[in-house]
């Protein structure tokens, strides 16, 4: 038996012509499946309408972009982003990279080569950045004496410590 589901669809929209409508009614009186389809279609139509109305109202009541809270949130995030960018741009890296002529205070490494020429010695504090403390007079003399006694070659801080003279720092 041919079912009238397509005609039922037109009928619920009020778009079914007179003759077809009569045929459909005759069929409905005999077919339980089509009666179920009709009740489903009517229910579906009503439910769809309710759903779309609800959906439209939800969209209407959704927070607007020109809402005060939206604006506060937007400007706060923008300000935070600018501050972070500024901090990032101005901060220095925690780890400093030492060039071969620089001295690091946290280790005992110092510049290895000390120039000895015409009895003039480049003291360590000259090449030590930051801490510019003059050594004591006595220790300076002692230090010079020791240095003059050494052959003109590389002197390390380790040598000085070993001889119990002191260090460059």
């Amino acid at each position: 038996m041919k079912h009238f589901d397509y005609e039922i669809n037109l009928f619920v929209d009020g778009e079914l012509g007179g003759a077809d409508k009569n045929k459909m009614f005759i069929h409905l009186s005999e077919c339980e499946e089509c009666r179920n389809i009709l009740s489903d279609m009517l229910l579906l139509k009503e439910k769809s309408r309710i759903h779309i109305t609800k959906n439209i109202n939800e969209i209407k009541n959704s927070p607007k972009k020109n809402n005060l809270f939206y604006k506060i949130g937007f400007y706060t995030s923008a300000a935070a982003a600018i501050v972070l960018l500024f901090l990032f741009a101005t901060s220095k890296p925690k780890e400093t990279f030492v060039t071969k002529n620089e001295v690091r205070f946290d280790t005992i490494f110092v510049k290895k080569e000390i120039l000895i020429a015409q009895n003039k010695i480049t003291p360590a504090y000259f090449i030590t950045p930051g801490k510019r403390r003059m050594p004591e007079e006595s220790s300076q003399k002692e230090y010079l004496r020791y240095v003059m006694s050494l052959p003109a070659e590389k002197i390390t801080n380790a040598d000085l410590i070993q001889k119990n003279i002191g260090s460059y720092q």
Partner: protein
Amino acid sequence: MIAEKNNVKELFEQYANDIFHYSMSLLKDPDDAKDAVQEVFVKFINTQRTFKGKCSYKTWLLIITRNYCFNKLNGKANRPIPIDDNLLETYEPKLDEKITIDDAIKKLNREEYELIYLREYACHSYMEMAEILGITVDNVKVKLFRVREQLRKYLK
């Protein structure tokens, strides 16, 4: 010119709400929908003289609305989205999963949703729907039937 102005004013008072709701159903954003109403009437004023009276003003305004909204949504106005016939065959609802009408309508694509919106919410006739969607009346009947069948089978 004065007659045209009065005409636009009347049309605005009469159909602004319909245009607003239709564009909101497509764009899903109230602010964009308000912009759409404005844009639609601007376009209507600019092209008013080319209106030949083949359809009603309301239908024409809704066609402009539809074109505007679809252009805003990546210019898909003239590209009909085919209804997936295999969807019903491949869809296997889980026994413990209760599908509501909300879930079922969310599964519809844009064109299917538009059909349901125009028929159930805006209460347009098949003829008006055909004019707005740019398809034939028979096509509207078939498409609407398929969408309803799809929804009905989801809910079963």
